[in-house]
Each structure stands twice: as C-alpha cells, then as structure tokens.
C-alpha cells in the first residue's frame, strides 16, 4: 500500500525506454520514501516481461495479459488501472509523456480526481507548509516543469489527493539497471474483474507503424537550427553540414513552427531531450524550453548574430556572426582539414 507506481508502456511486446527511465527514477524515490516500487504492464502475450522490470528495481510487477489490452485503447487500460489503484492506493504514479501516457494519464487522473502534472523535467521529494491552513505536509512529490512556453520553471504539488501523478518525457531521466539479480513479486491481474463491455467500444481498425527515420536521440553530433536561420533554404544548409561531419539535424520549436523542419526533429521540452558529444546551435536564441532538451550536451557551439543570446551562456564556443556565412565556412574548412 502507498507505494510508488510506474505505468509501463509496452510496444510490440517490449517495455519502452521511457518506462525503464521512470523505474530508475521511481527506485530512487521509493528508497527515499522507504516504500516499494511497483510496475504495471498491460498488453497481450507479454509473459516474462516482469524479469526486465525487476532488474530496473521493481519490487512488485502487476501484469495484465489479455487480448483486449492490445493494441492500446484508452478505456480498457483506464478501467484496469483505476481498479488496481483503488485497491493498492499508490502515493505516486508515473507515466511516460508519450502519446500513450498523455492519452491515458489525464483519463485516469480525472477518474480518480487526483491531479496530474505533465512533462516534468525533475521529480523530488520534499515537505510543504501551507501557512494559510496551518498545515505541514511531509514527503510530497515535487513535480518540476517548465511552464508558460518555457519562460519559467514551476514546482507543482498535490497536497491532498492521491496518487500524485506525473508524466515525464523520454530521455529526460537516466535509465540504469538497478540490480541484475533483483527479484520481485509477480501479480497476475484478473482482467475480467476490471473490464466492462462498454470499455471495449473503441476499435483500432488499422495501424501503420514504421521505424522513425530521424534518430537524433542517439546521435553523437547534432547540428540544430532555430528561427534565426531565417528561411527554409538557409535551414537546409544544416543538412549539408550534418552530412559532412556525420551528424543528425535537430530543430528548435520556433523552427518547426515556422515550417523549416519536421516535428520529429524538435529538441526541447516539447520535443526530444538529447545529450550528444557535440551540439551546434545555429540561429537558436536559447529559450529555456529548448535549452531543457540539450543543456547536458558535452560540448556546445552557439552560432548567433546576437552576442547576448541566452544560448551563449551555456555554450563552450560562441561564434557571433551571420549563420548563413559561417555554416558554409565550417563545411569548407572541415573538408580542407580532413583531406
């Protein structure tokens, strides 16, 4: 009872990365709260899935294995999870901020009237004093997230409602095996206990899933462009630089909104979080919403015509000048020096 729960996302029989990242974080939180870490895995033909979850620190794994739980649809998952949470009364429940977690999370939080914080970048345990009510709350979950287009960072708490729910984007937390030999307890769920016929009204009639063509998350060098690139044509220069130096192309939200790049290249709080060896930021001013997704890069080169751009404060190299002039020079001198 009152443990930390991670609702795992299963894709083609495998646990997705963000769920393992959340187990790693959840393990730390559970240790601090001196409670157990539990995982929920719902799908079909997922026997044995608990083994990996134990390794990432789960003490208990609740498995629902039923054809009605795959492919994912909102209502059956909601029914099982709200039913299970009614019995187990978790104090914290975490989900990935994927289309899965952002579809399921709000539905569950509304059913439980429990409050949910979206897209957290940090989770901590702390106390809270409500001076007006003269009450002190111990060991709350601080749900920390950029808000308001990334111009501020807000710490959100749920003083009175449980579970305290939060979603976290993929790549924000670190994924780490807790203990290869860690063994937990398996709890096989009786799905019939939770599902009603009206939960099954939505049908998936067709699915076309493909491997993402863009793989910025695992690229060791990223050339990223912002609104300051000025045009789609200028932005396209970045592909040439990326091609020459063996990099992937990323983009800021402003560049995506302006139509310079596809959405799956977006880096930042509402995109992908990356930690490459080298990050070359071209025409990016450095709003926190973007910086949140790349500040852990080992080396940052900022190219900007504004010497006071916020991005310069976290950069290792600041090149002040016209990006349309500098990028071709980088290509030229890279080629010259590698001949």
């Amino acid at each position, binding site marked *: 009872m009152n443990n930390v729960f991670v609702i795992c996302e299963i894709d083609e029989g495998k646990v997705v990365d963000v769920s393992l990242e959340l187990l790693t974080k959840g393990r730390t939180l559970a240790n601090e709260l001196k409670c157990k870490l539990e995982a929920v895995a719902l799908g079909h033909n997922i026997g044995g899935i608990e083994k990996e979850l134990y390794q990432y620190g789960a003490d208990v794994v609740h498995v629902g294995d039923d054809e009605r739980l795959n492919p994912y649809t909102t209502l059956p998952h909601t029914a099982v999870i709200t039913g299970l949470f009614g019995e187990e009364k978790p104090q914290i429940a975490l989900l990935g901020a994927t289309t899965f977690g952002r579809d399921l999370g709000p*539905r569950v939080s*509304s059913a439980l009237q429990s409050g949910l914080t979206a897209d957290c970048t940090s989770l901590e345990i702390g106390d809270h004093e409500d001076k007006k009510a003269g009450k002190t709350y111990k060991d709350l979950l601080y749900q920390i997230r*950029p808000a308001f287009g990334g111009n501020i960072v807000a710490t959100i*708490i749920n003083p009175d409602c449980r579970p305290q729910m939060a979603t976290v984007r993929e790549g924000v937390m670190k994924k780490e095996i807790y203990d290869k030999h860690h063994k937990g307890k398996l709890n096989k769920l009786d799905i019939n206990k939770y599902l009603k016929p009206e939960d099954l009204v*939505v049908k998936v009639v067709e699915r076309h899933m493909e491997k993402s063509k863009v793989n910025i998350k695992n690229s060791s060098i990223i050339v990223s462009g912002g609104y300051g690139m000025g045009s789609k044509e200028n932005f396209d220069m970045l592909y040439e630089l990326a091609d020459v130096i063996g990099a992937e192309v990323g983009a800021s939200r402003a560049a995506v909104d302006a139509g310079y790049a596809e*959405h799956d290249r977006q880096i930042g709080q509402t995109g992908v979080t990356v930690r490459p060896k080298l990050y070359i930021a071209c025409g990016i001013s450095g709003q926190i919403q973007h910086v949140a997704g790349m500040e852990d890069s080992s080396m940052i080169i900022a190219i900007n015509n504004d010497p006071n751009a916020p991005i310069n*404060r976290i950069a*290792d190299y600041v090149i002040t000048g016209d990006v349309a002039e500098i990028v071709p020079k980088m290509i030229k*001198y890279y080629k010259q020096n590698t001949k």
Partner: protein
Amino acid sequence: MGLNIIVLAKQVPDTRNVGKDAMKADGTVNRAALPAIFNPEDLNALEQALRLKDKYKGTTVTILTMGPGRAADIIREGLYRGADKGYLLTDRAFAGSDTLATSYAISRAIMKLEKADIIIAGRQAIDGDTAQVGPQVAEKLGMPQITYAEEIVSADKGKVVVKRRLERGVETVESPLPVVVTVNSSAPACRPRNAKLLMKYKHAKTITESQNASEDYINLTNDRPFLSIPEMSVNDIDADSKWLGLSGSPTKVKQIENIVFQAKEAKQLTAADDEINELMKELIANHTIG
C-alpha cells in the same frame, strides 16, 4: 441528418512573446499583460469541425470557450470562419483552475447545451502544453476519447472513424458517437475568415460587451439575434463550487522560478575565415568530429 458538433477553443497568451509582468505574485499567469491569440491547435480542431459541416448537411458547429470577457474574441473569430454559434463560459469562480477544475466546468457547460455528437478540441494549449483537458472532459462526460487526431475521416451511422498521428506512425480507430476528439497541429490548417461572415458577425457581442452599447446597437441586435453571444456563469451550469477554481484543483503551484543559466567561460569567435578554420582544426584534432 446533420451532426451537432461542439468545438472547445481557448484564448491563450502568446507565449512566444512574454514580458516581465507576465506572472502574478501567487504564481498564476497575468493574462491581462500578454497578447491573446486563438490557441493554434484549436484552429486545427475548428477546421475538422467545418469539414464535417461541409460533408454532412444540417450540421451545426458551436464554439465553447472558457475565459475572461475578452475571450469573446475567440467566438467571433470562429464565427468569421464558419462556426454557427458560440458560448462564453465566464465567471470569477473559475480563477486559478487547474486542468481538472477546468474540465469539470467545461463538462457541466456541455451538459447544458444541445446534446453533442462530437466534441472536438485542440490536442493542447500553448500556455500549459498539458494535453489534459480533452481526455478529462471525455471522462467527466463518460464518453470515449480519441486523442492525437490528424483527420476525422467520417462521422455517420452513429460512429466516427479517426486517423491518429502517433510517434512512429498512423493508427485508424473507430468509436461510437458521442465522442471527444483532440486534434494535432499536423492536421490541416484552419480556413481563413470568410468576407461575408466577417460582415455578418463583426458586431456580435456578449451581453457584457453590449452593456455600454448605443441605442442603435440595441435596435440592431433586436433585428439580428445572431449578433448576441450568450454567456454562461457558474449559476447556469449547475456546478458544485467545491470542484471549481483553486478549491477544485488537486495540483497547486508551490514555487515559480525565473530561468537563470549558469554562465560558462566560452571561447568567443567571429565569422572570420581563420577563426572558423582554427575551430574546425581543433575539433578534428581532439576527435570531437571526424
């Protein structure tokens, strides 16, 4: 048989354009200090509704927005683009609402309107980026939800077929009506204002806005009832005040921090050829690239 569609739209501060007085001392947003726009994905939602209206004769599109008095702009904008009518849900009791309290108020308002077949909203609003209100309204109304929609393919014979855009592909789902659908920015952009509709509705006002209007305007609206934008308050939606505003919000803002970057010692360069050349040599030499 036409459909009855409700579009949920929100007026949002343009977060791409934020000044110093944007936040109040209690950590909530000072909306009065910011330029206000139609939430971008709500325009994608409106377009999906208007396409259904084009396709199914007799369909009506109603805009529902919750916000302060000036959010009536959203309804006028919707009318200019082809919506049939709009309601402004406005009350001081809604101040400080989180997504759950907001969803509660909106769902109560929807129950007071003519029974909807489809409720369409943008996936998320740019001020909070939570994507929670759509699913929470669906839950409170006991309706199925389809999020991340890119296209409402059809809506007839009591069911809707929707194409969803997910991280790695496309999924087509089928749901009975009534249903809540939230629409992505990857869906087609909203059609522009229609000149005739702009002429027709440019004097549309809420009751509050028309309080100081001239006698001429009052006479005009008597002849043209479509110029009157109805308002709804807490009293009109049978809401329990404990589920509204701050008291109805499980999440509280504990603290707000402005962003301060840790300054690093950076090497300063210009666009000069020798400087770029040196940089590339250095990056190659220390195996950062190449």
